[in-house]
């Protein structure tokens, strides 16, 4: 057995020392390089760590009773049924437009509605909307709406008789299909050959394939069961919507709740923790693959695959796939190490239980990573919808008179983007720390020492993710 006192301090001390030996005259690169920041980038990371430590001290001394375990919600209003129908119609209409523009429009990503809509509005914009106003995708989901319409039609044809799903959704399957869906989309976005991934017909064909897959799953296992657990996008957006101060109840009722309290009752079926780590890991890889370290070393890994007999494209895709998987594993490893640290202070709960119990603390981090990495993309590229809505096919039409609209890249400065990124990362991790502290108060009731010590480990996880996130952002384009 390895002796911790002998092995680990020198190991980590060596790494720490090596980090200190690197030149301190840091220069900002990539996006932040153009920002002309007054202080080196690494100093932001150190300041962020100090903010997290101060937050930890404040929480430990001032936050004495659990505040976020109950939603404390109050009813706001009730949405009439036609609003939900309207949302379904809009969702199906937009999906149809993605398919039509993808197949029939110009095969150039920048002038075709489908590509910008899927990669920017849907993939980056919808998470932000979900965090602000709650679970909206549930109402707009085209596959869910179509499946419901088909169910209604079948019931009508059978004279009001309804039949249940053919199969029961297996409990062990949990969120694993959703994990596969998210990894698949990330693979398409980050790994698949550039000329193909941005081709509108590819986006439309894959959207159609996903639509059919979802319909098949819903037909087999039931609409609600499949939708809530297996549809990757639905699970992802619903997860983020738990951060929102607004929640949806039965019969279209809207509730106002305490921010973050929606995460307290997060259900963790099999695959949930991996799903959240996948969300952070895919964003991590997006940042990492745009950095100097990856760009300098990726060709040598690619040549290994080429030597094994793979064609250049396949070798490139295998290299990027490897990077994607490693990034997800790294995030899982950091979280798992933190949980094992929590377990080491008290054996009251087993590591598996703790992994699930603290999983909700990663959700604000996942959103922080998404916002920090894609903020500029969302701000700039979403403006393209201004001209795409008038000319969705890219064939020169001008339906609403906005085809001449241009993207304003001066809408925000590079420095402002960097500050938003830092603020998003910091806010996400402080939120994670709050959730972890609140949960620890419940878990270690009556054992103050264990409660405090467990939070040292969660602090370490949060500092690690913050530092890593800032490092990734600072390395973009180096």
């Amino acid at each position, binding site marked *: 057995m390895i002796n911790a006192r002998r092995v680990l301090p020198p190991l980590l001390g060596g790494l720490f020392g090596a980090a200190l030996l690197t030149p301190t005259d840091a220069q900002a690169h990539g996006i932040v390089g153009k920002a002309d920041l007054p202080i080196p980038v690494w100093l932001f*990371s150190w300041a962020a760590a100090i903010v997290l430590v101060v937050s930890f001290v404040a929480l430990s001394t001032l936050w004495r009773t659990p505040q976020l375990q109950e939603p404390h919600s109050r009813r706001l209003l009730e949405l009439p049924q036609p609003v939900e129908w309207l949302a379904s119609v809009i969702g199906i209409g937009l999906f149809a437009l993605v398919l039509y523009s993808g197949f029939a429009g110009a095969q150039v990503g920048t002038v075709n509605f489908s590509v910008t809509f899927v990669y920017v509005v849907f993939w980056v914009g919808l998470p932000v909307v979900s965090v602000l106003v709650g679970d909206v995708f549930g109402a707009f989901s085209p596959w869910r709406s179509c499946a419901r319409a088909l169910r209604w039609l079948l019931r009508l044809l059978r004279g009001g008789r309804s039949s249940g799903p053919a199969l029961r959704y297996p409990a062990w399957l949990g969120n694993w299909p959703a994990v596969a869906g998210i990894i698949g989309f990330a693979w398409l976005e980050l790994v698949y050959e550039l000329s193909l991934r941005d081709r509108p017909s590819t986006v439309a064909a894959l959207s159609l394939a996903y639509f059919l897959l979802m319909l098949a799953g819903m037909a087999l296992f039931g609409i609600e069961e499949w939708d809530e657990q297996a549809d990757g996008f639905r699970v992802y957006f619903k997860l983020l919507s738990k951060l929102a101060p607004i929640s949806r109840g039965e019969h279209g009722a809207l509730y106002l709740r305490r921010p973050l309290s929606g995460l307290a009752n997060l259900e963790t079926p099999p695959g949930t923790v991996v799903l959240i780590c996948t969300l952070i890991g895919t964003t991590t890889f997006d940042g990492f693959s745009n950095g100097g370290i990856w760009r300098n070393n990726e060709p040598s890994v690619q040549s290994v695959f080429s030597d094994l007999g793979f064609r250049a494209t396949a070798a490139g895709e295998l290299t990027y796939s490897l990077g994607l998987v490693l990034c997800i594993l790294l995030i899982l490893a950091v979280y798992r190490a933190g949980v094992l640290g929590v377990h080491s202070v008290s054996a009251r709960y087993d590591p598996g239980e703790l992994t699930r119990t603290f999983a909700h603390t990663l959700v604000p981090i996942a959103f922080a990573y998404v916002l920090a990495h894609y903020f500029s993309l969302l701000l700039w590229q979403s403006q393209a919808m201004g001209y795409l809505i008038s000319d969705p096919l890219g064939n020169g039409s001008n339906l609403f008179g906005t085809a001449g609209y241009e993207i304003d890249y001066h809408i925000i400065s590079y420095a402002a983007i960097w500050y938003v990124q830092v603020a998003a990362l910091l806010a996400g991790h402080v939120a994670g720390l709050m959730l972890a502290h609140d949960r620890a108060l419940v878990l270690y009731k009556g054992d103050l020492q264990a409660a405090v010590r467990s939070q040292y480990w969660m602090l370490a996880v949060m500092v690690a993710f913050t530092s890593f996130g800032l490092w990734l952002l600072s390395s973009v384009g180096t």
Partner: protein
Amino acid sequence: MSGSPRAITTLIGHSRLPLALLAIAVGLLLTVGLDPNVLCLVPALALALVLLTRRYPGERMLIEVRTRSCRHRARPSSDRAARPRVLVILARGGKLIASSLAVRPPPPAAHPAR
């Protein structure tokens, strides 16, 4: 308990893989590209180092502050409890009349006609 050699051994036994992965990842970062921005990772590494040596700096202070403030909060209520209670019994005739009126309002004749 928490600081026993057995607990440390268990921690290491369980966390060998994640730690190995972490060490490899960080080692790779440091060897393949000595980017000055790697300094961003120093706070995380420093904290990990401290915790892996089973040290929780400031822990005693945090617990003390919290316990002291809890005790400080509890004092006034305990003082109040020690004080003898003075029971004030008042004749609540008004309440009786009000409640009887609420159940059965007075007959209309009781109100002077305007």
